[in-house]
């Protein structure tokens, strides 16, 4: 599903952001990528969506080698990848419903096709009743759940989460992780980048630790 071979990423000057990364993530896995700020977690996620290109080495996602993928083909790859951000990135001028329906609008579905799917996914994240509110009217945890709903509505095979709980307190952080686990249970491959140590250690999932751009620890843990 995701494979990296001897991947380097340099931004010019200083140490490389990623230094000889070798990694294979299978379909349906739930993986934490941990490490302090600046370890290369976000860069790693950006390589997987083609926002950044590797300086050398090969990145393969969903059977596509990103080194050879044209810019014009990237949108099709990204439609199969859900992305969740620390700062949610919701469009403030649009309602919850409109925010979540964006990925479906992009692939050209009609309003009739969009409506039931958005309502269903909003219900699944527990926000069925907030469809017509604006993001600013929601709490942080609710906003992140809207963002998750937006990432899921397209039924992606991969879900990437960049510090999804960074702006939330621990209680809400657990709620979000529980939700991500459920999504994983339905078959999506989930990759969560976080600098927090607590939750990854407790949920017993594969954990990859990065430091200064290198993998210093990669352990597949038995789910518990």
């Amino acid at each position: 599903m995701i494979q990296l071979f001897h991947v380097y990423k340099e931004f010019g000057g200083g140490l490389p952001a990623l230094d000889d990364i070798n990694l294979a993530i299978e379909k349906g896995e739930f993986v934490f990528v941990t490490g302090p700020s600046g370890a290369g977690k976000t860069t790693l996620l950006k390589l997987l969506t083609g926002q950044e290109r590797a300086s050398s080495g090969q990145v393969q996602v969903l059977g596509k080698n990103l080194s050879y993928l044209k810019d014009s083909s990237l949108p099709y790859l990204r439609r199969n990848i859900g992305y969740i951000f620390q700062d949610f990135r919701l469009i403030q001028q649009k309602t919850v419903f409109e925010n979540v329906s964006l990925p479906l609008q992009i692939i050209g579905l009609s309003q009739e096709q969009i409506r039931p799917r958005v309502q269903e996914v909003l219900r699944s994240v527990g926000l069925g009743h907030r469809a017509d509110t604006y993001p600013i009217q929601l709490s942080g945890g609710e906003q992140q759940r809207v963002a998750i709903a937006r990432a899921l509505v397209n039924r992606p095979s991969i879900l990437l989460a960049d510090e999804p709980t960074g702006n939330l307190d621990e209680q809400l952080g657990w709620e979000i992780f529980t939700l991500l686990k459920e999504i994983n249970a339905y078959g999506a491959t989930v990759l969560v980048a976080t600098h927090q140590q607590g939750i990854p250690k407790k949920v017993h999932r594969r954990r990859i630790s990065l430091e200064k751009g290198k993998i210093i620890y990669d352990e597949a843990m038995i789910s518990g």
Partner: protein
Amino acid sequence: MRIVVFLQEAVNNVNRHRLLSLATTITISLILMVFGLFLLIYFNLRGLGGSLREQVVVTAYLQDGLTREEIRDIEERIHQEPAVGIVHFTSKEEALQEFQEKLQGQAGILQGLGENPLPASFDIKLSPTYETPEVVKRLAETLKLIKGVEEVQDGLDWLDRFTSFARFARIMGLGIGVLLGIAVITITSNTIRLSFYTRREEIELMRLIGAKEAFIRAPFFIEGAVVGLSGGVIALLSLGCIFFLFQKQFIIEKGFFLKEVPLTFFSFELLLLLLFMATFLGGMGGYFSVSSSVKTRRGPRSLW
């Protein structure tokens, strides 16, 4: 279906930056007005040049005191010239009458004259195949040699000057048109780029969830097109008002000298073409506002 979404998006954007959009619309409409004014002057000058060329008349003024036979001889001599088309004789009396008609209301000027000072004349129109300045000049030279002809006016100097002025105006108009076109694109592009900056995160998000460039740019193109079209409509309406006021004031009421050559406004087809141009240029401005920002995005990036 999609176009409805894009339109909605574009209208929302215009609405979000109401003042800015208004300022751009006005700027564009001013630019288009200047452009339209040039175009209008150019078309009318061209029309005027055409009708003046058709009206090239060589006038041969006769000496006073010629007998009828002498006048008839002169007319026959004139007709022998191959370039000559229609010949019209104006007697001294007719000349005076025409002059009086032209000076309606100011007949007092003529009262002190006593004797009729105006000469009899032949107005000679050239046959269409001979309407070149060289032929006119040669004919004028020949007519001067005829006995009994006092003076010959060919009106060519004026026509020559007019033609070169019209040529100059055409080149100027073309240059100015191109410059103003670039100005419309640049101004729209800059305004819409501001709208782009306020929505940069939204656009990056759209890219990340798999939107194609066309999908992202379409609302910006439409936004630019809406602004361009509004600017175009305002410009043409204002130009129309100015034109008809000018016509009423100077030609109908004041009896401007161009009475015989009616001024023309843009034809319906040209109006449509101008509106289309304004819309298209505005749209291109919107389109480029995104693509140039894409380029800056590929510049230096933050580390994380």
